[in-house]
């Protein structure tokens, strides 16, 4: 299948400005839109104790105006040009992106460059965005059933504070943030030499280069940010925890394991093992537990992909009156089966087709392309990995999956979080 099916490689051109900004162009004119993604090499992994939530708070500040773009105008300029935009923060990076009609490329570059060189950090903006972040926390975490559980499990898996604390951070730390702290954060991390700019979509490469030079070349580089340590010992931080969730209607449990960094053969093998275990209705655990034993209502799982030690999480929402430890035994015995016998030929064929299908579909939108390219450029220093990632994944064998599962997904090195409904009903 993979031998006969060729996905045309993306056209890529990469270069650096003198100030250290890494630029990648991916021209593709099938639809007259253009996407830009600016990825800054700062995420919650760069935060230290007492300063959590800074990377994310800062993402909000980036929409509060700069020398030539007033507060909230960033939204407005993009929208009135007929574009969409946003920013997000993860453990690994903070990203900003916009998709615009093809002829508005200069606008996007102007907006991104103005805040990279001259963000306006004022007391008023800071206070206002602190409040917005607090509401975001209430909305996404505090007011949702199971809203806190992924952050809790992350804390149980990782020992190193850089990895274990949440991206939203502590509200006390945010309260302590001063304008000076935030300005310093900007100086250190929002420098051109700490960022990647990717342009994908309908544009002339020479025109794009002229525009990038015009808007970004004059921004001063800064000394390298402090080196961080995300190393982890093999063992997890905590094996077991009960958590009473006032909003949860049903019990739930989550199991997390510490696994090697992204883009290592072992991580890739676990990623594929995860797909076989929990992805889709033909997956092993769905067929065993939702069907089969009929003991759970919902199954979920994902890999948390990081540059350093990463994790894989599997969770279930059992039916009432179920013996949770029995469900976990079934889960573990299915995982053990994968660790002993590997994946079947039919499963390997499924994985191949799914990987190819997912890859082709992820190439459709200029924004999705820009983001994927930006990650490879920032994390690996090599945007062309987007053209070879599929091949790397297709090389993973049943034997590789077996070996990796056997090594990492053990009962003794798992973190188990038990969620107990504690509402008044």
């Amino acid at each position, binding site marked *: 299948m993979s031998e006969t099916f060729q996905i045309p490689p993306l056209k890529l051109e990469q270069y650096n400005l003198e100030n250290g900004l890494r630029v990648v162009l991916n021209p593709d004119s099938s639809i007259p839109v253009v996407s830009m993604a600016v990825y800054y090499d700062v995420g919650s992994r760069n935060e230290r104790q007492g300063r959590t939530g800074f990377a994310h708070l800062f993402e909000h500040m980036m929409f509060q105006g700069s020398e030539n773009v007033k507060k909230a105008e960033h939204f407005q300029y993009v*929208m009135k040009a007929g574009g969409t935009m946003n920013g997000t923060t993860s453990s690994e990076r903070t990203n900003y992106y916009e998709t615009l009609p093809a*002829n508005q490329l200069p606008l996007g*570059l*102007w907006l991104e460059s103005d805040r990279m060189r001259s963000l306006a950090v004022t007391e008023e903006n800071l206070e206002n965005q602190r409040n917005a972040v607090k*509401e975001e926390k209430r909305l996404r975490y*505090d007011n949702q059933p199971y809203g806190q559980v992924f952050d809790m499990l992350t804390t149980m898996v990782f020992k190193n504070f850089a990895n274990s604390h949440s991206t939203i951070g502590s509200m006390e730390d945010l309260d302590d943030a001063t304008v000076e702290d935030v300005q310093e954060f900007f100086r250190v991390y929002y420098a051109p030499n700490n960022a990647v700019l990717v342009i994908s979509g309908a544009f002339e490469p020479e025109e794009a280069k002229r525009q990038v030079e015009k808007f970004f070349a004059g921004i001063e580089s800064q000394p390298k940010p402090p080196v961080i340590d995300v190393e982890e010992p093999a063992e997890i931080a905590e094996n077991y925890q009960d958590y009473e969730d006032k909003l949860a209607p049903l019990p739930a449990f989550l199991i997390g394991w510490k696994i090697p960094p992204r883009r290592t053969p072992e991580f890739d093998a676990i990623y594929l093992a995860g797909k076989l275990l929990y992805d889709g209705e033909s997956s092993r655990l769905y067929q065993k537990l939702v069907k089969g034993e009929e003991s759970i209502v919902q199954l979920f799982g994902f890999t948390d992909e990081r540059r350093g030690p990463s994790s894989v999480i599997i969770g279930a929402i059992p039916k009432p009156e179920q013996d949770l430890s029995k469900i976990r035994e079934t889960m573990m015995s299915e995982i053990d089966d994968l660790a002993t016998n590997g994946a079947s030929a039919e499963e390997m064929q499924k994985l191949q087709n799914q990987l190819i299908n997912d890859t082709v579909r992820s190439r459709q939108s200029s924004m999705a392309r820009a983001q994927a390219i930006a990650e490879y450029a920032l994390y690996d220093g090599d945007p062309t990995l987007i053209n070879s990632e599929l091949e790397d994944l297709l090389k993973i064998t049943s034997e590789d999956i077996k070996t990796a599962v056997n090594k990492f997904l053990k009962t003794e090195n798992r973190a188990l979080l038990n969620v107990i409904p504690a509402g008044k009903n």
Partner: protein
Amino acid sequence: MRLTFDLNMTGKNMIEDFRKTAPAPLAPVPFDIPQPFETELANNLKVVIFEDSRLPIVSFRLAFLSGNINDPADSKGLTSAMTSMLSEGTKSYTSRRLAEEIERLGAHISANSGQDNSIIAASALSLYTSDILRLMAEIVLYPTFPESELKLYKQNMIENLKFQRSQPGFLADEQMSRVVYGSHPYSVTSPTPDDIEKLTREKLVEFHNRRFVPNNATLIIVGDVNREDILEEISGALGDWKKGSVEKTEFETPPVRTAVTQTIVDRSGSAQSNIVLANLAIERGHPDFFPVLVMNQILGSGGSSRLFMNLREEKGYTYGAYSSFDTRRQAGTFEATAEVRTAVTGDSLKEFFYELNKIRDENVSEVELKDAKNFLTGVFPIRAETQEGLTNLIVSQKLYDLPGDYLQTYREKISQVSIEDVDRVAKKYITPDKIAIVIVGDAEEILPQIQPFSANIEIFDTEGKPQDVSNYGKQADGKTSDASGDWSLTIDFQGQSLPVKLKLEQTENKISGSLESMLGKGEISDGKAKGNKFSATAKMQIQGQDAEITINGELENDADSNQTSASNKMKGTISIPLGGVSDLPFVGIKED
């Protein structure tokens, strides 16, 4: 020399100058969506084919023009159950075998019903076009609805309903639909557990035979296909499908609103209030669709709209405030929504009303109009970038019977909207003087804040059961209990009982005093009382560090008396910021 020097200076200033204003756009790039090919099979199945060979993938949608609102009155949830169970077993495949067959291709098939339509969606690499079409036909034509699978569906559905009830958004939508749609079936957002229990295999089989007929359906194919080839395959897979009769259902008219009403869903422990303001507006095919789209863009769609700028950017009440028009086949609503922190529920309503009245009373500016139109026309191509996006555009055009050139003239229609159009539709479709307010949150906290907006208040619990409003809000009348006194508390800490002494002095609703425990003694200075509840923090030193112990208490009154002045029992929770200990339950007795 001087000349060169001057030029350099000017040059440098120019570098700064180009940053001062937004750069001009480059030459515009035209964008056109070609017309798809349309035909009909002998059994009246409509077929729409859009050849798109950008990437080797294909998407199918088989859409039936009947949805949840076509459920028989005594069988709510039937359409949804029947649609979901299509893939749980067919003439030739078990549920498991089907899932394996589909996923082995790396493909997806899903079947879902909405209020108006039921849609079977399939997507695959184009090299598997024939296989996925065959599997889609199999589940549409030959489902067997096995008893065992139905039993499992019912069990899981009932648990899922519990889960939905824990979501504030679901609760808000449930009440909003009930209030606004009255006896129209759009008022029902979800079946009840009883409805689910009543489903039988016979009902599903009968309903499938009756509803899933080709003359009530449209098949849309977008992707890397050849028109002639795919048409031949479709005829092979679905040509023998027998026609049936399509019933026309008459629906009750939604009620005419005459006044502002307020509905609270009491979700205790809520960190926020989910606010929805809603009234009836337009159906999808209404000629005012485009003016409404532009008007809503200005009022509350996205991050530069008036509602967002006011409630989030200026006031900081919320993570986001929005408005939208939900336009369905039969009718539709206008909705303004935000999730705000509980303490500013009333203040947020005030700002909502301010903005809803303003867009009715004053013309929008030329700039606002232009910006809104630019946005709506500009994002249109972005929505067509992916095959999913393009397919969805074509699906909505076909399902809502929009004009044949709808996608081609979309941007032109937007451009034609005038300030007068916006003013007219704002006055017509936003009616703050008779709007329905629905709030999901802590009723005791919310009630006193919303009194000014209407005395017409009803309260429901999270199960959807009406509550006696007179049981709530007693503190709103100023009857605040007196927590003053020396209290002896017992805290339950991991099965152990820990004693705490609490001295409280209350003047009106302000509480001060002290808290003494094994960890030390702390002063209380900024406590507050409300009704029979109070909250306070005690500042103390624990192991050399400043710490705050938070206490939330509730005085217990005699159940059958309205006396709120004297009480000698309390309960509540206490949080100690050590090792993440929070919300430990306690009980307390007043010492004589």
